């Protein structure tokens, strides 16, 4: 497995360079996992992408690097200590840093000679492909996805130029992932929504959620869906609810700050029983926090957001595959139970791309609203039923008026203050939780069956935890296993209650300062974790970091 870092200032084209390189590597058969680490600025600063690839599945990043592609000196200063002893640094001739591992090539000069200084990043891609024993087969195909038609020729030349100027350094390894997808978390969410029949997405731009909206906007005309940029997040969620009421599958998305504005309307979805899917792509808070960085600190917030009590479901996305299928499933559950379903992602997952088996949209069937009223007499939108689910008709698709009210209401949907109706309506809504609990998916379990330490996590730490368990078990000091939650509220407890009593140590690994999952587990099951590994510096924990902290902090 190899790990490359491409770094430079904002505006130097790091992201495009990384995207083109990772696509080449994936197409040649490698499993790829790329993370994007960038600052909240348009120019300058220090940004980097880490591209990890190999012939075995890669589910997380690593901070140990085999090669640095430095667009500036700062990149070398920041990362040379992470570079393996036999690693290399590739940099332009203009760099002033001295390092025995530095290979200087006049990439800017080559780009200038080709007539466009902006292609030096592509020259670097050519150099790297040669160094790793790759070919330039299908180059035009790859370039077409990232470059405007009029620039394909010059980029193709740049690729050739770079390729010719370098020497092979590593052998090509045969992988089997050439026909798999390479997709980021947010792209997978967007595809999952489309596969579920999304017709309306309203949002206000906010990092790191914006690429969900951009991905949908790019394919909206082809698919036949409307993406509307709202004036604020309050409008965004109220629009999604209005569209859903009127029969268009709808979704909204934001990060924690925007979600804070959405909470009253979350309750509107709850009390009016209008299906809603909302994604919170978390970033460190509170308030503006660290806009382009990662954290898992909104769990406690979203499970209790909005005044009053109503059923809801919260699903944490763990990886790119989950991002697709769980988004599809969120639409199904939102419609089935007529509830808000909140997806929790984070910057790490949203921006990271990974190789995944091509998505199968037929794997999940998404429920639809009723087409006719099966009750007696007058249509009762909020009819009392055994399971709490009332027939949802679409206005205009029936001769019967569909009446909804954010006030407490009677079965017809009309405002009421009657004490007995209030109790019956609350009970009706809360009954849906029983059904939701039956539909919950247990957390993923991996590691040794005869574990003595059980690691607990949720969401995007899935990859790092899985790899950490592998690392620790290979060392042979102790036996490790992990449970990583996807469905997280209501909390699925079956597997946890089966595994937890067998563990000598229960360690929660979370990207927050207070151990929010551990708190939820203790609240729901009475079982407390014995220790915690918490990280809240805005950077995702890596497998080796989890293993290190378990060793150093005497958790063994």
């Amino acid at each position, binding site marked *: 497995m190899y790990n490359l870092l491409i770094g430079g200032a904002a505006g130097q084209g790091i992201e495009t360079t990384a995207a083109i390189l990772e696509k080449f590597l994936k197409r040649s058969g490698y499993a790829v996992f790329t993370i994007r680490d960038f600052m909240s600025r348009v120019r300058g600063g220090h940004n980097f992408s880490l591209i990890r690839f190999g012939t075995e599945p890669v589910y997380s990043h690593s901070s140990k690097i085999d090669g640095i592609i430095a667009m500036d000196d700062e990149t070398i200063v920041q990362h040379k200590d992470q570079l393996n002893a036999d690693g290399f640094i590739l940099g332009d001739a203009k760099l002033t840093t001295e390092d025995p591992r530095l290979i200087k090539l006049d990439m800017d000069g080559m780009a200038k000679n080709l007539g466009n200084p902006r292609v030096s990043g592509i020259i670097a891609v050519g150099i790297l492909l040669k160094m790793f024993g790759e070919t330039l087969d299908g180059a035009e195909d790859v370039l077409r*996805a990232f470059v405007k038609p009029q620039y394909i020729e010059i980029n193709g030349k740049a690729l050739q130029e770079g390729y010719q100027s370098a020497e092979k350094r590593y052998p090509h390894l045969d992988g089997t992932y050439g*026909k*798999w*997808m*390479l*997709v980021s978390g947010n792209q997978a969410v967007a*595809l999952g929504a*489309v*596969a579920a*029949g*999304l*017709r*309306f997405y*309203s949002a206000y731009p906010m990092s790191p959620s914006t690429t969900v909206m951009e991905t949908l906007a790019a*394919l909206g*005309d*082809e*698919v*036949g*869906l*409307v993406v*509307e940029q*709202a*004036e*604020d997040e*309050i*409008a*965004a969620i*109220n*629009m*999604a*609810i*209005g*569209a859903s*009421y*009127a*029969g*268009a599958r*709808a979704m909204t998305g934001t990060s924690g700050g925007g979600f804070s504005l959405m909470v*009253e*309307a979350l309750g*509107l979805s709850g009390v*009016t029983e209008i299906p809603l899917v909302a994604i919170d792509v978390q970033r460190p808070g509170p308030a503006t926090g660290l806009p382009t960085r990662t954290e898992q600190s909104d769990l406690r917030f979203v499970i209790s957001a909005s005044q009053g009590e109503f059923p809801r479901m919260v699903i944490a996305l763990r990886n790119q595959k989950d991002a697709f299928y769980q988004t599809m499933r969120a639409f199904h559950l939102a419609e089935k139970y007529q509830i808000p379903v909140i997806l929790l992602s984070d910057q790490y997952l949203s921006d990271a791309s990974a190789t995944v088996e*091509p*998505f199968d*949209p037929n794997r999940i069937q998404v429920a639809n609203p009723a087409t006719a009223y099966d009750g007696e007499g007058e249509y009762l939108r909020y009819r009392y039923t055994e399971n709490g689910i009332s027939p949802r008709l*679409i*206005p*205009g698709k*029936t*001769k*019967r*008026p*569909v*009446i*909804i*009210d*954010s*006030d407490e209401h009677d079965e017809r949907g009309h*405002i009421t203050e009657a004490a007995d109706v209030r109790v019956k309506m609350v009970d009706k809504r809360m009954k849906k939780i029983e059904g939701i609990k039956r539909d919950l998916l247990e957390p993923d379990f991996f590691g040794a069956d005869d574990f003595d330490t059980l690691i607990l996590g949720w969401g995007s730490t899935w990859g790092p935890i899985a790899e950490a368990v592998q690392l620790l078990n290979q060392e042979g000091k102790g036996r490790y296993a992990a449970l990583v939650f996807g469905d997280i509220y209501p909390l699925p407890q079956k597997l946890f209650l089966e595994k937890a009593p067998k563990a000598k140590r229960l360690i929660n690994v979370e990207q927050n300062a207070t151990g929010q999952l551990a708190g939820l587990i203790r609240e729901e099951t009475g079982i407390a974790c014995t220790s915690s590994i918490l990280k809240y510096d805005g950077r995702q924990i890596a497998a080796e970091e989890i293993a290190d902290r378990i060793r150093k902090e005497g958790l063994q």
Partner: protein
Amino acid sequence: MSTESFCTYETAWCPGCGNFVILECLKTALEQLGKNPSDVLVAAGIGQAAKTPQYINTNAFCGLHGRSLPAAVAAKIANESLTVIVNTGDGDSYGEGGNHFIHNIRRNVDITHFAHDNQIYGLTKGQASPTSVLGLVTGVQTDGNFTEPLNPALVAIACGAGFVARGFTGHKEQLISLMKQAIEYKGYALLDILQPCISFNKTNTFGWYNQRVYDLEESYDFHDKTVAMTMALEFGDKIPLGILYREEKKTFHQKNEVLKQGTPLLDRKTEPDVLNRLIAAYI
């Protein structure tokens, strides 16, 4: 007046409230336009005026305070065959919902906005609203309101609304006519309806309005924006009623690539071929 198909319900309004007249005129306007109750969506936020959907036999969306416009425009985007009418008060429309008011004018979705404007907060029992006059003494504005009143018609014209009108509950026939024209207008239409709040606004009474309002003359050119803005500014000793400004503009549906193809959004299906192509693009 016959309002049979839109039914009559018991209301929570004070006897003599202008909302009764607005509700009656709304039902009449819908009947005269030949609308089926099941094709009409009356949306509202929260407030006394916002209870209107409760008292009419149509589809009803009673959402959150101030948030009726986003929900209503999205319902129209989802299903353009619905006639969508927002009925809600001055606080809901211009205060809590002020941002949505501005931006939905810009969006120009084909919905109708009847703002029941009594220049006071009713349901919360008599505080200043965005349109309250200067000097109005309330339980909160104890020294008299010194915040400049908002001029909804002027704001709407300035933001680019294509249909801006003012009505008065004392002039029923005109109100019905304005409602019908607003509903028929293709695009966002604002009808600001002056109405007395008999319980909490002792300044802007029925008599206060009645003495000041006058009908715009037939020769008035509501296509001239500059003239319209000047006319909208007239809100004192004299208050003009009628269509202040009108302009035919492309609607959201006419501009949006997907919606302009004609199939209502909720009837569209994602083709498996398209989906497979989108997935394949990531390979």
